[in-house]
């Protein structure tokens, strides 16, 4: 097989049940999913459908009860926690709803830390950080502490941190879930921009506006894929987009 035919991410038969206080919760109940290089996939569904659990499985933050995940053709089934941590440093970037920045580190240090941990020389880590922060409109905020920034700014720092090592895959778990509508549009714009440059993205969101930035939308219900639709921008319809905007007489 050549590189083009190996999916960046391939999950087969994923199952995950949470055993909490009450009855066992079947969060993920048999999911097959393949993400091609350069693809932008959104996973939508009601809260509690298990979509965040699925994303956590894909990023190795939780381990499946059954099933298998391949990253770029490599089987991860026997990966240790430490090995997954390495993948998350180099191959997978993750952004979360609540940013998860290190609160007592400056913006610059938050972004540089994963690069330094990955063995990037400090000079290059700084150059990468400067470039990303400028790109994300955060130049001048290097010395700020996360608590001094707005939610939208913190999420942009988190995005810079996730992308500083140029991971082939970006996972985003409700990245606009705690942002206002302006922040949501900003996240949408940035994800689209990085995707436009070839970044592969898997996005979990309940926000259809955000999901519509993706090439492909998976509807997740009750632990399963209910629909998997490629958005082609040319739906068979009578009126076209203009019909939605038509102001009636």
């Amino acid at each position, binding site marked *: 097989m050549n590189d083009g035919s190996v999916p960046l991410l391939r999950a087969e038969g994923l199952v995950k049940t949470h055993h909490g206080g009450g009855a066992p919760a079947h969060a993920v109940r048999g999911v097959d999913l393949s993400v091609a290089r350069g693809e932008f996939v959104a996973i939508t569904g009601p809260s509690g459908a298990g979509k965040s659990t699925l994303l956590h499985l894909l990023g190795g933050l939780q381990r499946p009860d059954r099933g298998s995940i391949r990253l770029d053709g490599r089987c991860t089934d026997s990966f240790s926690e430490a090995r997954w941590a390495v993948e998350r440093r180099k191959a997978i970037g993750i952004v979360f709803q609540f940013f998860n920045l290190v609160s007592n580190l400056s913006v610059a240090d938050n972004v540089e830390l994963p690069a330094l941990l990955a063995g990037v020389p400090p000079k290059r880590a700084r150059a990468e950080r400067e470039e990303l922060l400028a790109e994300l409109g955060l130049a001048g905020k290097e010395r700020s502490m996360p608590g001094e920034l707005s939610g939208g700014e913190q999420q942009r720092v988190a995005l810079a941190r996730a992308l500083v090592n140029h991971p082939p895959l970006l996972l985003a778990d409700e990245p606009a879930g705690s942002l206002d509508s302006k922040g949501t549009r900003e996240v949408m714009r940035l994800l689209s921009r990085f995707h436009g440059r070839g970044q592969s993205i898997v996005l979990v969101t309940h926000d259809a*506006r955000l999901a519509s930035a993706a090439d492909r939308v998976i*509807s997740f219900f009750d632990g399963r894929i209910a629909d998997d639709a490629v958005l082609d921008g040319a739906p068979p319809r009578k009126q076209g987009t203009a019909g939605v905007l038509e*102001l009636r007489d």
Partner: protein
Amino acid sequence: MRLPLLALLARGPAHGYELKQDLEQLLGSAYPQPNVGQIYVTLGRLEKSGLIEGEDVEQSSRPNKKVYHLTDAGREALHAWFEETEDEPRVRDEFFMKLALAPQTGLADQIALINRQRRQYLNTMRDLSKLAAAESRDNRIAQLLIEGAMLHLQADLDWLERCQEELEEPE
């Protein structure tokens, strides 16, 4: 189109082509470009019902153009328009009837109906996102029109999700 044209004439007299340009400028690329023929037809009807009056203005080397102004009755109609509130948008009736009747006919599956409808909404949402990105950010009226359409679609999608949650067969 009738009342928006009246509203544009409340500022002062104008001819048909000016009104078309004013509408375009106000609503941006988001709004389907008004057809100039349709504008002239509407102006003709408004004149017939006494809400506006047209005056021929001679132009050298071109046919006369008609400049319209608002009448008192027209101003009255505009007051009434601004006074009224509008009906709420309705649930997509036709889709709802399909969903309600599908099980009895045995001809369609409810979940398949929901999935197909969702695909269309998502595609439209994508088109609207592109439109919003293409429209100037400074045209707040046009941006608000697109955002309104997106929020309505979001509500329709949320409702489809609720339908799916309720109607999905439990195992």
